[in-house]
C-alpha cells in the first residue's frame, strides 16, 4: 500500500477544483508540512517512550508500566504535563535570546524533513540540493543551543552552550566529508537520486567496500555528536554541568528542547538510512515501512550507545574529531574518488 498514491489523488482533486495553481501549491505544501509535523511529533513521543523501555530493559527494569499497555501513554502524559507547567523565566536572563532559543531549535529540527524522502515519491519537496539543505538546516541547532547557553545567564548553561557550539562545529566537518563520499558516487545532491542509486541491496552505500562502511561509521559517530547523545553528550552532561544549556528552562520551552533532541535523533537516523541503507528501497513491504524499519533500527543503535558508554571529556572529544575522524574521513573521500574514477567497484 503506497501512501504516495493517495496524496497524488488528493492533489489532483485539489488541482481540479478550479483554484489557481499558486494556491493549490501553497495549500498542498501547508498540508504536507502539517502532516510531517504531526507525524514527527508522534514519532518523537514514541521515541521517548521507546528509549525509556529500552533503557529499562537493558537495566533489567520495566520502564514505564502503569499507563496503558506497557506504559505507552506515559510520554503523552509527560508531554501534556510539561506543556501545562509553569513557564519560569529567571529574572536575570537575556529575554529575547532566552525565548527564541527553543523555538529555533524546534523549527530547525523539523525543517530538515522537507527534503527527506519517507517513501517512494513521498517527499515534501525534492530539492536538487537536498543533502546540502539538510546539513545547513541541522546546523541551526548549534545557534539555538548557543543562544540558550548565553541567554540563560548561568555559568553552567554558558559552559554547556560553548561546549555544544565547539562540538557541533567540529563534528559537522567529518560528517559532511563522509557524506560527500556518498554524494560523489551518487553524482547528485538530491536525496531522491541518492536513494534511487541504491536500488539493489548490494548497491547500498554501506556495502560498497571499502569506502562505504568507513563512511558509515564516521557518519554514525559524528551524528551521535551532532545530536548530543552519549558518549558525546557533553553539552548537557548531567554529572558535570547539571543540565548544560537547558538548565534554566522549564515547562514548554524545555519540552521543545527535549522533543527537538529526539526529532534530531530521528533526523540523523533518517539521513543515515537514506544515504547508506538504501532509503525506502526494499522488497515486499511498502516503501515507507521500509524507511521506518531502517531508521528505527539506526535509532536503536543510538540508544544502545547511550545506555552503554560513558561520556568523553571535552578536550578528548575535540581531539578525536580533528585528529582522528577528520583525517580518516578525508582519506576515505580520496579513496571513494579513486574508486569512482577507476570504476573498479562501480557496480
Amino acid at each position, binding site marked *: 500500500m503506497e501512501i504516495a498514491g493517495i496524496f497524488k489523488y488528493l492533489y489532483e482533486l485539489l488541482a481540479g477544483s478550479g483554484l489557481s495553481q499558486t494556491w493549490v501549491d501553497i495549500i498542498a505544501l501547508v498540508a504536507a508540512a502539517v502532516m510531517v509535523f504531526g507525524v514527527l511529533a508522534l514519532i518523537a513521543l514514541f521515541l521517548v517512550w521507546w528509549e525509556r523501555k*529500552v533503557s*529499562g*530493559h*537493558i*537495566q*533489567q*527494569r*520495566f520502564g514505564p*508500566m*502503569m499507563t496503558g499497555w506497557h506504559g505507552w501513554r506515559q510520554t503523552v502524559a509527560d508531554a501534556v504535563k510539561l506543556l501545562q507547567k509553569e513557564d519560569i523565566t529567571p529574572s536575570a536572563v537575556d529575554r529575547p535570546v532566552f525565548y527564541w532559543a527553543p523555538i529555533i531549535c524546534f523549527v530547525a529540527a523539523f525543517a530538515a524533513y522537507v527534503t527527506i524522502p519517507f517513501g517512494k515519491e513521498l517527499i515534501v519537496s525534492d530539492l536538487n540540493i537536498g543533502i546540502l539543505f539538510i546539513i545547513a538546516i541541522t546546523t541551526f541547532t548549534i545557534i539555538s543551543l548557543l543562544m540558550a547557553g548565553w541567554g540563560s545567564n548561568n555559568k553552567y548553561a554558558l559552559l554547556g552552550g560553548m561546549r555544544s557550539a565547539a562540538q557541533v562545529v567540529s563534528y559537522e566537518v567529518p560528517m559532511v566529508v563522509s557524506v560527500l563520499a556518498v554524494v560523489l558516487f551518487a553524482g547528485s545532491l538530491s536525496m531522491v537520486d541518492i536513494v534511487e542509486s541504491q536500488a539493489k541491496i548490494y548497491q547500498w552505500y554501506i556495502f560498497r567496500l571499502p569506502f562505504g562502511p568507513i563512511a558509515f561509521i564516521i557518519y554514525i559517530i559524528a551524528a551521535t555528536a551532532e545530536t548530543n547523545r552519549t558518549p558525546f553528550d557533553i553539552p548537557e552532561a548531567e554529572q558535570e554541568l547539571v543540565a548544560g544549556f537547558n538548565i534554566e528552562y522549564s515547562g514548554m520551552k524545555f519540552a521543545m528542547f527535549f522533543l527537538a533532541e529526539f526529532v534530531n535523533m530521528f533526523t540523523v537516523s533518517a539521513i543515515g538510512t537514506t544515504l547508506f541503507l538504501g532509503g525506502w528501497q526494499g522488497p515486499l513491504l511498502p516503501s515507507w515501512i521500509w524507511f521506518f524499519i531502517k531508521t528505527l533500527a539506526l535509532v536503536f543503535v543510538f540508544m*544502545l*550507545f547511550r*545506555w*552503554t*558508554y560513558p561520556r568523553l571529556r571535552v578536550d578528548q572529544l575535540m581531539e578525536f574529531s580533528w585528529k582522528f575522524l577528520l583525517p580518516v574521513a578525508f582519506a576515505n573521500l580520496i579513496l571513494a574518488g579513486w574508486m569512482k574514477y577507476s570504476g573498479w567497484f562501480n557496480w
Partner: protein
Amino acid sequence: MVKQLIDGIKNLVIGMMTTSKHLGRHAVTLQYPKEKWPMPERSRGVVVLLSDKETGKLNCTTCLLCARACPSSAITIKYEKDENKKRQLKDFIVDYNICCLCGLCEDACNFAAIKLAPKYEFSTLNKEDLIWHTDKLQEMGRDVPYEKPVKKKRPAPKPAAKSAAKPAPEPEAAKTDDKPAAEKTDKPEVKPEERKPEAKPEEKPKAETPAEKKTDDNKPDEEKK
C-alpha cells in the same frame, strides 16, 4: 595505533553485547504498589505492642526499660501508680517522627511486649499522625507472631520478683478492667497456662469493645514521666 584502534572497537562492541544481553532478560524489579516483596520475619518496619494471644491484654509491664534504651527518646510512657506502688500503664506513645527503628527497645524488653514488625507503608501527610498511642500500637501488634520469653537468666527476675511479692488478687484485676489501657499488672511471673482459666472469660468482652477503650485513652493524663 591500529592495534589500539581495533582493541578499542572490540571492547566497545563487547560492552554493547553485554548490555544488549541484558535486554532480553527479565526485569529484577517489582511493580511496587501491585506486587510486593515478602518482608523477612525479622524486618524492622514498625514498632508494635504485643498483646497476649488468649487474653488480648498488653504484655507490657510498664517497666520503662524500652524508654530508657531508646537512643532517640521516641518512646514516652505515661503511667500512674496504684495503691500498691505498682505502675499502671496509661499511655504508650511512640513518636515515629524521631524513631530510628533500631530495635533496641525490643532487645531491652524482657516480657515480649514490644517488637519491631515487618510492616510498612505508614507515611502520612501530617506529622501528628506519626505519633502513635497505645491503641494503634496494640492494633498493629495483634497479628504479629512472637514467642513468649523463657524466663531470662538475669534481668528478668527483678521485676518479676517485685510483682510476685504482691500477688495481684482477683478484685484488683477487676478494678483494672475499668482502665483497659492499663491492663498489664500481673503478667510476668504467671504462666499463661495457669492464668488461662480465670482470666479468659473476664477479658474477652473487653477486648472487643475498642470504642470504650478509645475514649479512655483520650482522657488527659495526669502523670507523666
